[in-house]
């Protein structure tokens, strides 16, 4: 059995003159929760469509569980579970009818199907609504039902396109719990997201893509570390001058220093020594009112890598 769940090698996808994905190479190992992180329109869904065989790459190769998705996607379709962004549920059918329809499509054995549907619906806290039409469900309930459907045929690999899209905080938390349970059971999960918190909580590794290009690929903690160990938010009175910002930026171990709203935000690597040097420099030229030290966020990582906010 191959240890690689998904492999993209030099994948490019063009729509006419527009390049949606540009020479993307990524490998997802079995048993990991892998995230594709990027702003809207960055190419995440296009990538997931190619991985699930819904779309062909213009160039490059996509293999899933060792199978070439262009040459023979049918072979492993039964091993894949997909939660598309738009849910793809029949809204005028009941929750149960949707699940039974999926069971027919994926040839889930009829024996034990009722029990399996019940247990999955219970897990998703939808059991009481099994006979209700999907059109009466909230956005979060639809997402949960779409996840239940994707798990009904017990796939080896799950694609989840934007788990947190259009759902309230509670539903998002419930979806995360389900994904974390899958992770504990050793399932491979590929998610796309533009919620950094979601990526942080769920993903073992993250590929940050922007305008169809791979910008960074690592675990969330390593990505944050690559940006710097610590972020110092320093408030001064009076506000820091341009000269002070330049002076701090020039210190050894300082990754970046940005002045904003009477404060200076400094990212450092190297721990306490560097922090001490920064504080010394600040108090030498102005009065330090408050200092906070924290880990860098993925937002800041993304901003530093792409020069823009994730959901601008």
């Amino acid at each position, binding site marked *: 059995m191959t240890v690689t769940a998904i492999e993209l090698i030099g994948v490019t996808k063009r729509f006419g003159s527009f390049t949606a994905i540009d020479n993307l190479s990524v490998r997802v190992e079995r048993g990991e929760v892998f995230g594709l992180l990027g702003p809207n329109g960055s190419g995440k869904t296009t990538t997931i469509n190619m991985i699930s065989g819904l779309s062909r790459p213009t160039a490059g190769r996509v293999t899933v569980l060792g199978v070439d998705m262009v040459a023979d996607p*049918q072979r492993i379709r039964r091993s894949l579970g997909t939660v598309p962004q738009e849910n793809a549920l*029949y809204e005028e059918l009941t929750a149960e009818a949707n699940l039974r329809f999926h069971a027919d499509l994926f040839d889930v054995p009829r024996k034990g199907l009722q029990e399996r549907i019940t247990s999955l619906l219970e897990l998703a806290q939808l059991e009481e609504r099994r006979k209700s039409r999907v059109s009466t469900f909230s956005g979060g309930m639809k997402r949960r039902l779409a996840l239940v459907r994707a798990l009904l045929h017990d796939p080896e690999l799950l694609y989840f396109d934007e788990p947190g899209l259009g759902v309230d905080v509670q539903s998002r938390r419930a979806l995360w719990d389900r994904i974390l349970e899958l992770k504990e059971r050793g399932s491979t999960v590929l998610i796309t997201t533009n919620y950094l918190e979601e990526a942080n909580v769920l993903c073992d590794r993250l590929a940050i893509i922007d305008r169809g290009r791979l910008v960074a690929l690592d675990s969330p903690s390593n990505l944050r570390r690559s940006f710097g160990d610590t972020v110092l938010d320093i408030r001064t009175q009076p506000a820091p001058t341009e000269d002070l910002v330049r002076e701090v930026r020039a210190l050894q171990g300082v990754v970046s220093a940005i002045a904003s709203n009477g404060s200076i935000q400094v990212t450092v690597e190297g721990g306490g020594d560097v922090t001490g040097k920064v504080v010394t420099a600040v108090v030498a030229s102005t009065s330090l009112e408050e200092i906070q030290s924290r880990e860098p966020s993925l937002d800041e990582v993304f901003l530093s890598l792409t020069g823009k906010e994730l959901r601008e």
Partner: protein
Amino acid sequence: MSLRHNLRVVRAVAAADIRLTLREPLFAIAGLIIPINFLLLFLLFALSGGQAPVAVVMNDPGPLAGQFLQAMNNSQSFFIHTASSADAEREIRAGSVVAVVTVPQDFDAAVSAGTRVDIPVEVNNLNVDFTNDIRRALPLSITSFYANAFPEQVVVRALESDVQAHDTGYVPYLAVSIVVAGLMLAALLQGSVNAARDYELGTVKELALAPVSRLTIGLGKILGSAALTAASAVLVLGVVILLIGVHPLHPWEVLGFGLLMIAAFLALGVLAGTLVRRRQQAIPLAVACVLPLFFLSGPFGPANWLGAVPGAIAAVSPLTYAIAAFQHAFHGYQTATQDLAVDTLVLAGFTVLTVVITALVFGRRGVAR
């Protein structure tokens, strides 16, 4: 993928489509009503254009005048009623008759004497089609009257020999053609709406990601659409058989060709829905396809009577073969140059070809671009 799994998917897709259609009454009703409307509109058109309403003022009650009136009735060009001079005048002024024909008081005497008889004809020449009917049919009635009243004086006779075993009226002939067009419209509507729905609602991904062939899904969709199309077909056939009184000579052919037509046109409908991907576009597209094809496929007579260019178009239209086959099923004769086997092969081949093309278009790579 086993045969059992394929059959399970065909059944599931068909059942889901039927349930979804029934839960959207507007589309279901449109699918049933539009073909019936089509049938009734064309029949009204045929009936209204067939015979001109004419008032006859009979100023001579003699037997020859009576024979002349009978000759006019037999011409099948007039819808005649007798009226007084004043009533007839009122009717033509009101526009309720196309013409007033006045049989003069001395008609019998003049005809018997061999002297000239002038028959006043007042025509509302508003619509040249009706006017020409009067202009053509009245001289024919006069000739027919003379041939019957004075056979020794009319020495030129037409000796007719019929190709077909029996005559068929204009309306019964046209009604069968309209039934076929109605079936095509019903199938196109159901097939295209059911296929477009999955694109419109995004559920096409659920189908496209399933471990089954596109052909299997296509067959399921055709079968699902067939149920409502069959309901529509029963309504259309019911109107033609029970209300218009056109009874099929070969009922089993009606059943067999009816099913084959539904399959062929449903396949075309599913293909159209797969291409347009929106139900609101699918409905006008279905109507827009059927109308020109109907007129180009020999609805009023054999397609090869249409002339070179329309005839060539008719030769590649599946509706031509469907109409020819149904004319045989209802009236017992073959209208086209090919026989029933060719009609069957063309319709079956068209079905298979369309299903294959639909399966290709409904390719997974076409679901998400």
